[in-house]
């Protein structure tokens, strides 16, 4: 047979004799067609053949998906990426419509650390309401993975933590009433939270002494905690000082100035809600030493905290002595005060003042000079200047005192002139963050910023000493931080806008690709082909049914058998040709025998071959149905616009939102700038007023001093004249 005969067989219905060959050709065509179709539509379920799931054992275990996603948030949190952790929780809420209670509390902690206190408040209030609605069983434990290294707290403990945090939030905003209400709801305290609770109680009750309502403390642990909590003791000391009960305050402060705070390992929840500078370094929160024995950040924090507490107690003690007039005690107390303490400015002033009062003039003078050198713009320095000059007066060194006062007056006037320059420069500044060649913008926390960061990790530290002094005002510092945050948010939004634009382009490309496929009419071609193949299949089925009913084995003959049949036919023809000239009985007999044998062979194989062809036709039919399904699916995908349209709308909505947010940020930046300028103006006025007052006092003192000097001179002259007279008389 020629190769083209196969093709002719496929198309020409009138010469169809070789049924099985045609079937195999159809099969091959359908197979290649499927491969083509699959490349057009990738989202096709595999229905080819019977899928044996037993062959692929799958560990599909039903697990709490929320727990899995929550742990993804924890993964970010433990790496000092609270923004990403909060982002993950936000995503979880959108995907699952709800999150577990422990995830909600975790969210509140993250919101606090990222400067979203109102959000945190709402979350905490929500948790509290949830807990109060459901029946709380003390033995009930929260859902947590076995591999968690997080303290397992029961729901009641978590409620207490939420209430304590809410109380802290409220008191930060000065809302005493709500703080009291939050604290009143606490009926029991878990281990390690007594200090926080009692300290809040102290703050709320100030200036009264707090009354503890809770009696269900954890017996001995709470007693130890109560007894040795330094912050509670410090607040008590302050209260006693206010009540002028100095003896008891003295005892507490004497203990505190040398007390060493025990390094405590913070649990997960304590670290989450901690306000310390290294609050995010939670990896080390449960360890106090690295493996190479270097101290961890928690350990270092603890040392710094300890020192600060000791220094503050010592300073309070010295102040108490000064108030009581016990200057030598104050002097001795501050003699060993460390130089690098955050309270060194006040301590230095107080020490110098005590030295002056105990008539250690030289020491007082050197200390006042040191104060002026170390903190030239400090209010303490301005007072110290006056005291330094006064110390000369005390020593009857009038001329030196006068010289000192002249120098001080020049300093004050220079200060005024500096202030005026600063005022002029500042008022002209448009971008306030660029003022005064920023000295540094140091990273406050260890968090690396990323596309989803919500807070800037920088501090604003200007070079201008006046601005540095102004930034000691908490509100102004907060306003500058706000400016930094706004700048940071602007950058973040720009990045998000770029990403959104990129997604918009991806959508456009998708649309183009889809339209291209539609325009090439490929689907119609596929549809036609499938229909055609289906009709062919139907015809083949009919023929098979017919041959089955006729029990005609010849239609299922293979190649050899077809050759034999052809040979038999040829032989029959030849016999018919020579029949007239010869006796063909023998030949007919032989032919009949061969034909019979072949017919018997074909008949024996008929059932098997019938079944095989039926099966193949059934498989073909399935394949064609599957193909039809695919074509329908692809057609649906290409013609329906909903999914891409929905994505487009979302993308446009995000573009609009970004624009609105940028505008809002700009407005807020203008307001913040205005507020900062007002505050700086107010600060400058105050400083000018103080300097002028100092100049006035200096002038008055100088006038009196000059008067005294002149008086002394006159006295000396009179005395000298008197002495001369006496000598002359003699």
């Amino acid at each position: 047979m020629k190769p083209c005969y196969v093709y002719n067989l496929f198309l020409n219905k009138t010469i169809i004799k070789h049924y099985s060959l045609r079937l195999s050709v159809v099969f091959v065509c359908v197979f290649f067609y499927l491969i083509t179709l699959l490349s057009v539509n990738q989202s096709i379920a595999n229905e080819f053949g019977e899928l044996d799931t037993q062959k692929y054992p799958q560990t599909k275990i039903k697990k709490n998906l929320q727990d899995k996603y929550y742990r993804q948030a924890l993964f970010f949190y433990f790496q000092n990426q609270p923004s990403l952790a909060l982002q993950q929780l936000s995503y979880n809420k959108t995907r699952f419509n709800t999150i577990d209670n422990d995830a909600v509390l975790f969210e509140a902690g993250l919101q606090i650390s990222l400067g979203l206190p109102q959000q945190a408040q709402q979350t905490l209030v929500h948790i509290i309401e949830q807990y109060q609605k459901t029946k709380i069983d003390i033995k009930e434990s929260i859902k947590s993975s076995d591999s968690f290294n997080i303290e397992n707290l029961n729901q009641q403990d978590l409620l207490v933590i939420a209430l304590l945090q809410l109380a802290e939030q409220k008191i930060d905003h000065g809302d005493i009433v709500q703080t009291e209400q939050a604290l009143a709801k606490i009926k029991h305290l878990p281990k390690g939270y007594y200090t926080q609770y009692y300290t809040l109680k102290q703050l709320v009750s100030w200036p009264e002494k707090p009354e503890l309502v809770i009696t269900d403390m954890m017996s001995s642990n709470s007693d130890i905690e109560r007894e040795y909590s330094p912050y509670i003791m410090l607040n008590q000391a302050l209260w006693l000082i206010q009540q002028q009960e100095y003896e008891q305050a003295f005892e507490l402060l004497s203990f505190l100035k040398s007390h060493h705070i025990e390094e405590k390992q913070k649990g997960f929840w304590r670290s989450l809600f901690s306000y310390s500078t290294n609050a995010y370094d939670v990896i080390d929160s449960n360890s106090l030493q690295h493996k190479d024995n270097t101290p961890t950040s928690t350990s270092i924090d603890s040392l710094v905290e300890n020192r600060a507490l000791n220094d503050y107690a010592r300073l309070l003690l010295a102040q108490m002595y000064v108030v009581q007039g016990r200057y030598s005690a104050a002097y001795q107390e501050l003699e060993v005060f460390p130089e690098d303490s955050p309270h060194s400015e006040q301590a230095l002033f107080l020490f110098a003042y005590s030295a002056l009062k105990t008539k250690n003039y030289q020491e007082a003078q050197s200390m006042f000079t040191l104060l002026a050198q170390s903190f030239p713009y400090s209010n303490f320095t301005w007072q110290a200047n006056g005291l330094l000059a006064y110390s000369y007066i005390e020593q009857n060194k009038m001329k030196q005192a006068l010289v000192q006062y002249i120098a001080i007056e020049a300093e004050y006037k220079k200060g005024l002139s500096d202030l005026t320059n600063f005022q002029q420069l500042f008022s002209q500044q448009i971008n306030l963050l660029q003022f005064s060649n920023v000295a540094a913008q140091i990273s406050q926390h260890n968090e690396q910023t990323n596309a989803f960061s919500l807070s800037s990790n920088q501090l604003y530290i200007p070079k201008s000493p006046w601005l540095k002094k102004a930034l000691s005002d908490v509100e102004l510092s907060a306003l500058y931080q706000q400016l930094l945050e706004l700048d940071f948010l602007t950058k973040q939004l720009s990045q998000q806008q770029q990403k959104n634009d990129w997604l918009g382009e991806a959508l456009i490309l998708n649309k183009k690709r889809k339209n291209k496929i539609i325009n090439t009419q490929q689907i119609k071609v596929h549809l036609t082909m499938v229909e055609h193949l289906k009709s062919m299949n139907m015809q083949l089925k009919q023929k098979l049914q017919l041959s089955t009913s006729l029990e005609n084995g010849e239609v299922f003959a293979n190649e050899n058998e077809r050759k034999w049949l052809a040979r038999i036919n040829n032989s029959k023809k030849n016999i018919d040709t020579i029949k007239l000239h010869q006796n063909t009985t023998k030949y007919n007999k032989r032919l009949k025998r061969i034909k019979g044998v072949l017919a018997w062979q074909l008949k024996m194989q008929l059932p098997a071959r019938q079944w095989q062809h039926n099966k193949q036709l059934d498989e073909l039919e399935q394949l064609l149905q599957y193909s039809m399904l695919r074509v329908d699916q692809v057609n649906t995908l290409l013609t329906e616009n909903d999914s891409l349209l929905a994505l487009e709308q979302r993308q446009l909505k995000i573009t609009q939102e970004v624009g609105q947010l940028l505008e809002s940020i700009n407005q807020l930046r203008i307001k913040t700038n205005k507020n900062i300028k007002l505050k700086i103006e107010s600060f400058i006025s105050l400083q000018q007023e103080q300097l002028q007052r100092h100049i006035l006092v200096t002038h008055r003192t100088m006038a009196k001093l000059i008067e005294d000097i002149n008086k002394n001179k006159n006295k000396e002259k009179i005395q000298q004249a008197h002495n001369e007279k006496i000598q002359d008389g003699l």
Partner: protein
Amino acid sequence: MRNFFKNRFFVVVIHLLLMASVFTLAQALPFNGSNEISDNSLLTTELEQLKKQVLSLNRELFILEEDLLFPASTQLAVFVSVNIGHFFILDSVELKINGNDVAGFLYTNKQRKSLEQGGIQRLYQGNLKSGEHQLTAIFTGLDTEHRAVKRAVNYNFVKEDDAVMIELKVEDNSSKYQAEVLVEQWVL
């Protein structure tokens, strides 16, 4: 005399008017910070609102990106978790799908500890067509004796219309004193 008093009266009235105007002006331009404080807290509230909106926007953008680039019908995500991590100190992981390298990750100390503390890392997110696939993961790390060790796993799965999420769990086996890698396919 009359003129004298008239003038005096006039002067007094003007002084009173001046004082009144100064007083009114002072009221309009307060020097103390009481109004500023309320302004500042309003600003703080506004900033917080902005942050909340930015967070919401970030979330929407993230979900849009996921829906567009990794639709559920083709999405495959692979996660890594560590249970305890005493017998195997994780250093790196390589991921292959059907023999092709698709992801690799080198762990810092912090990342490893995050996993040991219970975090789950999304190692890979990609697209896969329907059908049978094979996932191969090779974990490299150190054992308790600080010797280099590798742990590998092969996993066959079928991709259908839903997203496929596979978690590779490096778990300590106390009975064998070593770690093994288990595969868990999440049921969505």
